[in-house]
């Protein structure tokens, strides 16, 4: 660098004629801006291929796009509630068929919890207290709490006139014992796991509403 400036030599260390500039010719300006968004092209693009196959694939592509939107896999973002319900909206609504994932193929944590567990701080405390004792003991306590909760819930939903929810809850109560036990076992494991991985737990300390959230959606075993 010093050599270039100090001795007043040409700014280039190589023969610029070799790159196509004659001596003394003005070099092009340095480009300081990004290239244009829609640059001019020197050559027009060739037309697209046409034919029966191409047309069929085009139709397939557009059809697939529409079909995908009607599949149960398409998860819509909850729209902001509008003040005025648009009449046309009612007709635009698409009815999707239900999809129940094969839970056997999925990690257990994928299962939505369909039992009222983490309803409030009170049952949690009870669970913690039961931890020290044997497994069966804990399960018993949990069962009791659960029953209490369900009763609670049933009443509540009656109050709120959520008939549908209430009846669903009740029908679930009628489930056979085996099922309950399995679910409880699961719940227990989950607690255990969470304790092991304290750091993961801490991620959710601020998300108080998370628990409530998942409770709201509790009945959505199907996506």
């Amino acid at each position, binding site marked *: 660098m010093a050599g270039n400036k100090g001795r007043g030599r040409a700014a280039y260390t190589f023969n610029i004629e070799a790159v196509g500039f004659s001596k003394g010719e003005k070099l092009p300006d340095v480009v300081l801006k990004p290239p244009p968004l829609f640059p001019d092209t020197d050559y027009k693009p060739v037309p697209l291929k046409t034919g029966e196959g191409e047309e*069929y694939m085009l139709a397939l*592509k557009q059809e697939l796009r529409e079909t995908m939107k009607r599949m149960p*896999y398409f998860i819509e973002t909850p729209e902001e509630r509008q003040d005025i319900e648009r009449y046309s909206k009612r007709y635009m609504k698409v009815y999707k068929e239900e999809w129940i994932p094969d839970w056997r193929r*999925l990690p257990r944590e994928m299962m939505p919890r369909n039992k009222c567990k983490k309803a409030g701080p009170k049952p949690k405390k009870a669970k913690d207290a039961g931890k020290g004792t044997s497994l069966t003991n804990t399960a018993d306590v949990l069962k009791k709490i659960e029953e209490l909760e369900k009763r609670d819930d049933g009443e509540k939903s009656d109050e709120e006139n959520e008939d549908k929810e209430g009846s669903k809850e009740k029908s679930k109560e009628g489930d056979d014992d085996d099922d309950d036990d399995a679910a409880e076992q699961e719940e227990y494991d989950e607690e255990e796991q969470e304790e092991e991985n304290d750091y993961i737990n801490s991620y959710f300390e601020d998300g108080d509403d998370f628990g409530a959230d998942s409770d709201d*959606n509790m009945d959505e075993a199907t996506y």
Partner: protein
Amino acid sequence: MDEIALRLPSTMTQAEIKLCSLLLQEHFGEIVEKIGVHLIRTGSQPLRVIAHDTGTSLDQVKKALCVLIQHNLVSYQVHKRGVVEYEAQCSRVLRMLRYPRYIYTTKTLYSDTGELIVEELLLNGKLTMSAVVKKVADRLTETMEDGKTMDYAEVSNTFVRLADTHFVQRCPSVPTTENSDPGPPPPAPTLVINEKDMYLVPKLSLIGKGKRRRSSDEDAAGEPKAKRPKHTTDNKEPIPDDGIYWQANLDRFHQHFRDQAIVSAVANRMDQTSSEIVRTMLRMSEITTSSSAPFTQPLSSNEIFRSLPVGYNISKQVLDQYLTLLADDPLEFVGKSGDSGGGMYVINLHKALASLATATLESVVQERFGSRCARIFRLVLQKKHLEQKQVEDFAMIPAKEAKDMLYKMLSENFMSLQEIPKTPDHAPSRTFYLYTVNILSAARMLLHRCYKSIANLIERRQFETKENKRLLEKSQRVEAIIASMQATGAEEAQLQEIEEMITAPERQQLETLKRNVNKLDASEIQVDETIFLLESYH
């Protein structure tokens, strides 16, 4: 070390991530897109971290992951201490672009029934055979005239043929062994696949016929009572092939595309007969050669002769002449591997793919920079390394123009420059500058441009649709009204009145929009064809 390198997320370029994001959003909505792209960017992560990092509720994340796993776009693995980590299959996401081609290919090979089978598998990610058969039979019945129905057995047959030719395959499944060991069950099932079961169709006796979809009251009233029990398969009946899921085997499709590309390249270069011979050779090795093998299995000329399609009347002598001719061709699509059995021949798959990629590069240079640039490009390709002065002389293009073209191709990365210093000080005046074409890196560069192009095409299409959203909704509404009026038997004059709710300029605008969207969609499909060629070459 290797394992760490493989798990690094940055193997995807920004263009690819952008494209993945657009595809996920179009197919599964914004929530799935958010989770999917997050996983692509970060590599594998556990559930709770995903929820935290994306600021999405745990419930939503679970739903999104279920969708992604169902469609084979995300896989999971149990790590130490029972933490399950989820990992996106990035390149699989990009394959969604090719769905129309997979479906169309099956249609050409296995007619409408095959088409619908593959379509259902792609739409649902994975399905049991009984579910596929039922869905397809119902759909086919709906397109048939009244009174006719599609038999389950017929759909089953096509399904079996697709499995025999490996176009559909079993998904890894949960092992059936009852684990009697105590202790909590594992946090995630380990899915396994027995290789010899991959294409094994479960023995099912699927009896039944497709049903037409009707509104429930019509169903009850309109159908004769006697016929009903035959049609309805009881829902509570245990599913015969429960737990055995099938998916479309995309690799097998790619192999088919590759073979077709090779056959048509041979047809273009030589003639129909030689392409038919190459097609026969490829068909003979379809199942015996793995899709990534550099060569097909050696085939003797006698074997090839026996396998030529019936009615293809060429004598053994002519076949041998053709084979010699093919083996002598400088492109080396066909190679001779021995003399036994009347001469053993192989198809040099890697070489063929390289030639196809090079031809794609040449044609892109020609269409972007003109035929004189293409001449320089081919010259450098042929001579491997050339100095600037030599290029000017050999290409017989005036020095100034030739330089201009060389620099242009250099700056667009179609060419590269190799420095060879004569002295250790690397002084420019004592250095050779050799122009060369690195086909692999040029092909890779072009591939990323293709990804970017498709992302641009999708964005443009979404923009066009959004701009005309109100108009589109209006036309949909009008169409719905007309359809319902037609169903109730309205008069022609009434229909026309409704039709006129869309004014002439609006109609014109709709036409333009449709034309533009069609063009953009067709471009997406065709750019993906180039992507396929460039990806196969690596």
